[in-house]
């Protein structure tokens, strides 16, 4: 769409985006045109209604956890190279890329020659670099969690504190798993204790 420069200025003025001398000059031009002033008031009323009804900013749920997830994902990525400080021309800035290109060409050429001799490295099974400490988020008020690795139990342990107790009247005697175990108990020679597939 080709917009007349005056139309552009008018649109900017209607949205209160003109400033300084441009604004002053345009105000002079538009002084005797009440329809434009009415349109500007209309635009202001509309923006005011929208801004009052629809929030421009809304904290995401679990905001701390939100940040944690972002940080975790960043840590799992290769580090962002620090932007080097600008410096003047140096002969290295010209020859280094050239040398790098030559090196790459040589490497490809050598790689091609030695492809049959170089054993393949299987990277598919290589472990990812994973941060050790987990992220813990406990949205319930009064609940907190401690995490540690237990070499004695060969496990990771999370201790939850402040969790509401389960009422004693609650009964778990008929869980589906236990029903299955009892059916299996009917088979001669099976030890129910060992059937529990415990970690």
């Amino acid at each position, binding site marked *: 769409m080709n917009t007349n420069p005056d139309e552009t200025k008018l649109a900017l003025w209607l949205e209160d985006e003109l400033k300084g001398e441009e604004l002053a000059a345009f105000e002079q031009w538009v002084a005797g045109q009440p329809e434009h002033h009415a349109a500007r008031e209309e635009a202001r009323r509309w923006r005011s209604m929208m801004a009052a009804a629809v929030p421009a900013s809304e904290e995401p749920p679990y905001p701390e956890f939100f940040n944690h997830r972002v940080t975790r994902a960043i840590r799992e990525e290769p580090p962002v190279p620090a932007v080097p400080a600008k410096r003047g021309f140096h002969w290295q800035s010209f020859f280094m890329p050239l040398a790098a290109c030559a090196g790459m060409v040589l490497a490809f050429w050598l790689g091609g020659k030695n492809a049959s001799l170089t054993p393949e490295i299987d990277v598919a099974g290589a*472990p990812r670099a*994973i941060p050790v400490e987990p992220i*813990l988020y406990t949205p319930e008020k009064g609940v907190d969690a401690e995490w540690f690795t237990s070499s004695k139990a060969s496990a990771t342990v999370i201790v939850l504190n402040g969790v509401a107790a389960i009422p004693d009247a609650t009964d778990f005697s008929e869980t589906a798993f236990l029903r299955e175990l009892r059916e299996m108990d009917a088979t001669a020679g099976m030890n129910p*204790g060992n059937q*529990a597939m*415990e*970690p």
Partner: protein
Amino acid sequence: MKRRACIIACLAAACACLAPAAEDPGKTEIGKIRVTVYHATDGDPQAAGGKAQPVSKETAERLRREERLRFKHYRLLGSDTQPLLRSYESWAEPLKPSGEVMVRFEAQGQPAGQSAMLDLELWLARKKIIKTDARLQGDRPLFMLGPEWRGGRLIIAVALAPESKPGS
């Protein structure tokens, strides 16, 4: 005629190749997660109910080795094994039909060997209690020391379920 038959055969072959691709790769099962709930107490083990199962000696010793999980008695209340999917969440309900303890998990990336990273949530009494990322290894489960119940505490164990062997 021959040419038409050839074209039809090619189309059929193309359809056969495309058919698997039409399935959602996110639903591929990349492992299994087992969630087990124990009742741990220094008091009367019968408090867990007459139908709770004894726990193997190995498991009891393992739990006792860790001071924070050390109790005199352990009983098995329930267990549930669910698939770990590539791009979808799964829910385990070890005390089904009771919804008192539920675990939601979702894979974070592909498992590497006998190791998997999960997004994991523990729900108790239908409230989200903890959300965490958990790294599970074949021989290294996650134990969560949970709420009190009948004079003891629940321990919720999350582990990679071993591959089922033929005939077992």
